[in-house]
Every structure is written in C-alpha cells, then in structure tokens.
C-alpha cells in the first residue's frame, strides 16, 4: 500500500481575473523509499500540489475534490489541530522554495530547530538539543555550530540547516520545492549527494519539485511530468528519460542540455504554457503538440497505464 | 490607456476614496459655476445695506456679512479662490520637489549632498512662520500667496522622490538605457519620470489639502488678498467683526465647514491613492 496516495485532486484559485485551475485532476502514488521528481515549468501546478498536501494554501484557494491519503488517512478530512500536531513534521515535512531565507535572523539556528521538536514531541529541552546536534552531524555540519545565528552560515549551509529542520521529527515523507535552484553548481552537488545519502541511511521517501530535469535524473527513481495543472506522464525515471511517450515529455527531454553524452540539437517546443484561467479545450498541450489530431482539441485524454507503473495522458496512446 | 482603466478599477474599491472624490467634485462644480449658482454679487459695494449681519432667512439663505453681502454667494465665489490657490501652489510644490528629488536621487554624490542639505534647511524652518514672514515681506497679493505656499511645501515631495529614484536607478532597464547610449537627460525624462509619476501625483493630491489649509491660515491671519475673497479671508473678517462673541454663527460656520470638508476630501483621496501607488501596501 502506498505511503502517499493522491487521487483526483483539484485545487482552484479565485482571482480578480477569474478562476485559475491550478491543479486539475492530479493523481499520484509514492511507495515507501521512493523519491519522486515532480517536474514542470513555472505555473504548471507543482507547488500548489505540494501546498494542498500540506494544507498550506492561501485563502483564495479551494480544494474542489480529491483525496490525499498519507499512511491511509485522508489529510483533506483532518482538522487543522490534528494536522499540526500529528501530521506536519512527524509524518510529513516540507522544504519550501527559498526556505534558507526564511530562518529567523534573531534566533540561533539550533533553537529554531529545537522549537519544532518540542512542539511535536514530549521530551526534555536537553534531549531535544542532543537531537539537534545529531541532526547537524547527519546533514554534515559541525554540531557546535548549532549555537550560531543564520547570518553566520553560507547559502549551502543554510540549506543543510533547513533539511535538518525538516528531518527533526523523523517524518516518513519530505517534500522539497526547488531545494537546490539558488545554489552554485558545486554546493548543489553537495546537497544532492546529501539527499541521496539520507535516503539510503534513513529510508526516507521524498517528493522533489523542480523544473530542472538533470536534478531529477540525479536523485529520483520516479518522475512525474506536470503541464498546465495536469500530470501528462509518470513512470520510473529511466522510462521517462529513455522512453518518453508524451510529446511534451519528449520535447523536454530532447531539449534538455547535458555536459556529456550526445550533443542535443535545437528542436524547441513552439508556443508557450497556457493561461490557466481559460486553458485550451481538450488536451491542454494540443496547441503546441507536433502530433495533434482532431480529437485532441475536443476531448481531454484519459490516463492510460501503458505498462506497469507507466502512466500517460495522450490520445496517441490508443 | 489601459493603465488608467485599471487604476480606476482599483480606486473604486476604496470607499473613502470615492467619498473624498465625490466631495471634491461637488466643490469643483460649485466653484466653477459660481457665477451661475450664486444668487447675489459679492463686490464690496454691492451688499444690501438693509440686511447687515442678518442671520439666515428665506432671502439670504446663509445670512449676510457686515457689508450686506450674501454668505452663500461668498462661499461659492470663495471656493473658487481657495481651490485655485491650493491647486496652483501645489503645482509649484510639485515642480520644485520633483526637480530637487529627482536630481538628487539620480546624480548622487556631491549634488545629492548639497540638494539634500538644502532640503533639510527648509524642513527645519517651520512652515507657517516662514509663510507669514515671506507674505509680510512680499506683500499680500493673490499670486504672492501662491508662491509663498508653494515654496515651503516641497520638502516632503523631494525626499520621497529621491528615495524612489535611488531605487529606480538601480533597475535593469535604466542600465539598458545607458547601454544604448542614452544621455542622462533622456534617461531622466523618458525613463525615470514616467515611473515616478504616480508617486508625484499622489504627493500632489496630499498636498492640495495642506495648501488650502495654509492659504486659509494666512488669509485668516490677515495676510490674504482682500480683492480675492477666499474662505480664509471670510473667516478673517468674521472674526474682525466679533462674530464669536456676538454669535454670528452663519458667518463662522460655513467657511469653516467648507475648508474642513475640502481638506478632508483630499485626505480621503490621498489615502485611496496611497493604497494603490505604494508598492508595499498593495497586495498584488
């Protein structure tokens, strides 16, 4: 039974310009130990999906339908109190985009992490501080530095602190939103290596949200591609990168540059991502699809399981 | 232009702003058509000798003054004067403030130092006493009053604009303008000013209320132009005939209320504008 089971999730935003269908019928499963890369361009709905899971949506958002089962409990039906005490941090943690800039500058980093632990677990302050020191070792920072303030850490180190914080109550699943985007190449590699290590050591399950396919190929065993609020394809990472079936996935992979291997040419995907207030009829990708047929502009494609674990939403699959 | 329409939509959301705008427009209308709306002329010799300092009646809706002039007509014509002084003085304030603020912010260095210290000097000198001194020296005429009020009010605008220009000049599109060879003058006129214009307008609106108040204060103190009867001048004469002690309420209340309402209306408008223009208050 999957650790996380998202079924037919719909989250819409009401804005001055209309209703934005940010997440429109999204389904995903994560087994224990999986690292799922949720890839897509800006505005495709990946961050909104994460915020829906955590129930951290802004006030103008509404979850219209769907279920989010974590350890067999539908998170969308729990009250805020239980969610805060029992779920967040203890079962599920999130590393937000730019989280390293969200550390409170007037508190020591160790205190900030300890605060989170004490809120969720009934242990003494000293025991919690010991845990903080252990966490620092785990993420590769000298434990004595827990007494320092955020401004004394560099960008990469701050990101490690944030990861330590996310791990502090031993969650089953971590959602990381663009965890390495703002970092330099070498620091990025250090953090990615850390995340791979943690997965191995702790059996951690992970959802990594990013637009950077190379980061996903590097760390995730499964990949889901989102476009305009929908998941167009998901499968093991090897399948997605080597045998992509959806035209959008194919376009992305074909154009994603690499420092080694075959030199890729330029076959850009024409057009640009659609407006989510009035997305195209039928398949949302059809205006940009080189293989679009008549039915594509009329009917939304169903999700077909091509082979075990490989799901595609495209009329071509029939 | 589409941005004016968007601005209009945002403005409509502010109830205070709409209230202020309505009051202001009412006064503008009344002043513009004073000639038509006023029942009686208000020349110093055109008063009705038989109705001196009479309370409101069916003939003179708001009573009369010591020269027999109709108060309602006085208020209508007075509005024209007060509003004109307020707007013109504010224009002067805006021009000086913009020149100083933009130049200081854009050029920086010694220029900025000198200009900002100059601004500080003006900031330190209290407004009303300065105006009183200048008005006494220059003579109390309609145009002098506009000048005097304009000269003391520009410091706030200058400071706000300088701050805005300081952050604006670091923007990439300014560097882009330099990269194609645009001169400083061109950059200021075509790139900086259009982007600070909303702030200038917002500043101006806030200052009109204050200018009208200053004009009224000066007139009340006797430094106004007797040939141009403003609300302040009316109050001045009201006091000089002892309205407070003799309870000539119809002489005191109308000009006072008008000044208050107009200044209030500008405060409301300014508040609504601030909500729209100030990037920190705006949510979007």
């Amino acid at each position, binding site marked *: 039974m999957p650790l996380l089971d998202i079924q037919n999730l719909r989250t819409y935003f009401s804005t001055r310009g209309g209703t934005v269908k940010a997440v429109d019928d999204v389904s995903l499963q994560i087994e224990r130990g999986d690292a799922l890369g949720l890839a897509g*361009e*800006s505005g495709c709905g990946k961050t909104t999906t994460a915020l829906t899971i955590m129930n951290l949506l802004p006030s103008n958002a509404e979850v219209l339908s769907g279920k989010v089962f974590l350890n067999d409990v539908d998170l969308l039906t729990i009250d805020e109190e239980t969610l805060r005490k029992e779920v967040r941090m203890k079962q599920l943690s999130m590393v937000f985009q730019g989280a390293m800039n969200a550390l409170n500058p007037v508190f020591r980093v160790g205190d900030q992490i300890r605060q989170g632990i004490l809120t969720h677990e009934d242990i003494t302050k000293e025991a919690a501080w010991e845990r903080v020191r252990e966490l620092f070792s785990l993420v590769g920072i000298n434990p004595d530095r827990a007494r320092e303030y955020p401004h004394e850490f*560099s960008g*990469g*180190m701050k990101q490690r602190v944030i990861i330590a914080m996310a791990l502090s109550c031993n969650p089953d699943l971590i959602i990381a939103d663009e965890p390495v985007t703002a970092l*330099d*190449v*070498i*620091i*990025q*590699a*250090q953090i*990615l*290596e850390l995340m*791979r290590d943690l997965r191995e050591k702790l059996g951690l399950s992970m959802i990594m949200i990013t*637009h*950077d*396919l*190379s*980061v*996903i*190929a*590097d760390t*995730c065993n499964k990949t889901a591609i989102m476009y305009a609020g929908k998941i167009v394809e998901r499968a093991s*990472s*090897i399948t997605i*990168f*080597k045998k992509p079936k959806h035209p959008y996935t194919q*376009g*992305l992979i074909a*154009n*994603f*540059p*690499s*420092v*080694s*291997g075959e030199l*890729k040419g*330029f076959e*850009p*995907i024409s057009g*640009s*991502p659609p407006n989510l207030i009035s997305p195209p009829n039928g398949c949302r990708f059809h205006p940009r699809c080189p293989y679009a047929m008549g039915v594509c502009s009329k009917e939304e494609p169903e999700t077909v399981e091509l082979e075990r674990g490989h799901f595609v939403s495209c009329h071509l699959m029939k | 232009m*589409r941005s004016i329409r968007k601005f209009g939509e945002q403005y409509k959301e502010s109830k205070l702003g709409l209230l202020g705008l309505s009051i202001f427009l009412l006064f503008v209308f009344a002043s513009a058509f004073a000639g038509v709306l006023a029942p009686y002329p208000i020349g110093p010799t055109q008063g009705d000798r038989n109705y001196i300092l009479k309370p409101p009646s069916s003939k003179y809706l708001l009573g009369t003054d010591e020269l027999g002039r109709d108060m309602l007509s006085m208020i209508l014509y007075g509005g024209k004067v007060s509003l004109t002084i307020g707007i013109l003085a504010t224009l002067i304030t805006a021009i000086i403030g913009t020149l100083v603020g933009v130049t200081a912010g854009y050029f920086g260095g010694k220029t900025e130092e000198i200009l900002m210290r100059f601004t500080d000097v003006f900031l330190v000198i209290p407004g009303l006493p300065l105006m009183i001194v200048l008005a006494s020296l220059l003579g109390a005429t309609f145009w002098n009053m506009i000048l005097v009020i304009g000269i003391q009010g520009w410091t706030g605008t200058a400071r706000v604009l300088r701050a805005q220009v300081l952050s604006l000049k670091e*923007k*990439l*599109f300014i*560097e*882009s*303008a*330099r*990269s*194609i*060879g*645009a001169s400083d003058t*061109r950059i200021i006129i*075509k*790139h900086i000013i*259009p*982007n600070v214009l909303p702030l200038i307008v917002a500043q101006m609106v806030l200052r009109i209320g204050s200018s009208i108040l200053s004009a009224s204060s000066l007139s009340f103190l006797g430094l106004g132009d007797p040939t141009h009867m403003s609300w302040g001048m009316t109050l001045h004469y009201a006091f000089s005939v002892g309205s407070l002690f003799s309870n000539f309420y119809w002489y005191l209340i109308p000009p006072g209320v008008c000044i208050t309402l107009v200044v209030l209306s500008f405060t409301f408008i300014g508040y609504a504008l601030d909500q729209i223009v100030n990037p920190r208050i705006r949510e979007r």
Partner: protein
Amino acid sequence: MSSDEIILKVRNLRKWFPVRTGILEDLFSRDEKKFVKAVDGISFDIKKRQIYGLAGESGCGKTTTGRVILRLLEPTSGEVQLGDQDVFSLTKGELNEFRKSAQIIFQDPYESLNPRMSIFDFVSEPLVVHNIGNEEERVTNALKTVELIPPEEFFYRYPHELSGGQRQRVAIARAMILNPKFIVADEPVSMLDVSIRSSILKLMFKLRDEMGISYLYITHDLATTRQVCDKIAIMYLGKFVEEAETEELLSNPLHPYTQALVSAVPIPDPTARKSKVTISGEIPSPIDLPPGCRFRPRCPHAKEICSKEEPDLVEVVSNHRVACHVRV
C-alpha cells in the same frame, strides 16, 4: 564556424571595487585600503562570428567582466579593443558611436524592459538616441527577425502583456537594431522556462549566422554552454583558470576546479554517473585572498609552489590554456 578575424581583444583587464568601511575606520585604520578584486587580470580574444562562453559560479567576476568591456562600469586597468577602437580611451562622443557596435542582453526579461514604455518605443529607442531615422520600417524588421509576428501587433503593447520569452525577444530586437558587431549575453535564458530556452538560443544563432555577430555568452550553466559556445573560459575569483574549445574543455578538463565543476553538474540521464563532489568547502571571500594560487585552499592536488606563486594561463595543448602549477 568563426572566421579568423579577431574582433575583440581583452588584455589584463582589472576591475577592483573598494570595500566600503565607515568614516571612522577610514580615518583611524592604518591598514591599506581593501578591495574586492572582482576581475583581476584576464586576457582573451573573440573572433568574428564566435560565441565565446564565460562560465563560473557566483562571485567569479563574469558579470562584471561583461559590464566593464562595454564600459557600463569603468575599468580599474587593462585594455579592450573592439575592431580598431581602444574602448577605454574613447571620448564621450566616440563612446556613443561605440555603443552602436557593442550591445548587451540582460538576464532578467522582467526587469530589463521599462514597464511604462510601449514595445515600439523601447525597440526604437536606440534609433532615436543615435538620430537614425526610418523608425517604423526598422522596428518592423527587427521584430520580424526576432519572430514576433505580426510586428504591428506588438507595437503598442506593454511589457506586462508579454511572456518572459517574448520580452527577451524584444530585448534582443533592441540590441540588434543598430547592427552591432558584438553582443554581451548575460545569462540570457536562465530566467526563462526550459521549453522556451532553445528557441531563444536558436534565435541568437540566427543573428550570428545572418548578421555576423560575435557573442560573449556569460553563464553559470555548463550544460547550456555546450549547446551554444564555440569556446569557453572558466573563471574563479576574478581570474581565468582554463580556456579551450567547448568539447575539449568539457571532455578533457585540466584544471582541478574545472574538473570539479564538470563532475558536479548533474546529467539528465538516470543511467549516467551521479553528480560528484570532488572538492570541499565553499567559495572564499574575494577580499583577503591568500598569496599564490587562489584555488589552493580547496585544491586536492596542491603543492608547495601553489602557495607561493600565482600560476599563469599558459597554452598546454593546442588552443587549450590552463593556469595551474600541477596540471593533472
């Protein structure tokens, strides 16, 4: 792809920024003035029609280099020659002429367009500044070249009505409207969506092919340089550590820093090697640099000479220069 004519020569370029301290420190401190040596002595050539990549991590000086070459920042010392013009000794009037032949495309298409200027005014501004007439025709052609079609539809639109990719095309139209010889492209696609990047890069190639433009392509993304650049130079703390033709540099990096960079870049292929960390630590502050090679504190192969002498950038293999005493 590129001819042999050299259009840009840079020699010993330096840009130092004084470190600002408070007034009291300035008055009472006896230490010599400190500088951030952002660019500290680089020399290279760019040929006609060549796309020359300048790559490195944040703080290495690549962005500053681009600005100084165009004199958007005044240099501390060094020489830059564009064609036969000595860029740093140009008078104000001559500098204006120079701006016609050397342009820049910025990284952020959301900030580099004036939000209150129509597209037409923005693209035609270079023409207005240099008093070149025929605006409508030239702007139409420029917009057609950057594939904003039909051009007339874009004339009276404003930046906020356009997507990131479209804005960047507008920025390119403005940069090329004066027929420059040389364009500095400062991370031109890093803020664009992945599916749009290729089309913008393709556009840059088109301009190179049709108009003979050379580029200095500044980036932190080594994978993109492979698609775009003919030659790459790697910068670290203000100096070049290695320079070679793209394929050669990426497949045979000789400097330990380049090696570290190349092995750290993740590859979009789950079956390929994972990104590897071969050096430790982080980029140090560029203010108090240790003597000798700047990379020595992090270098796994450092020897004694490395802490005494700064290595020169020398050609070790044909067309492949490295600044390293050890040269693995």
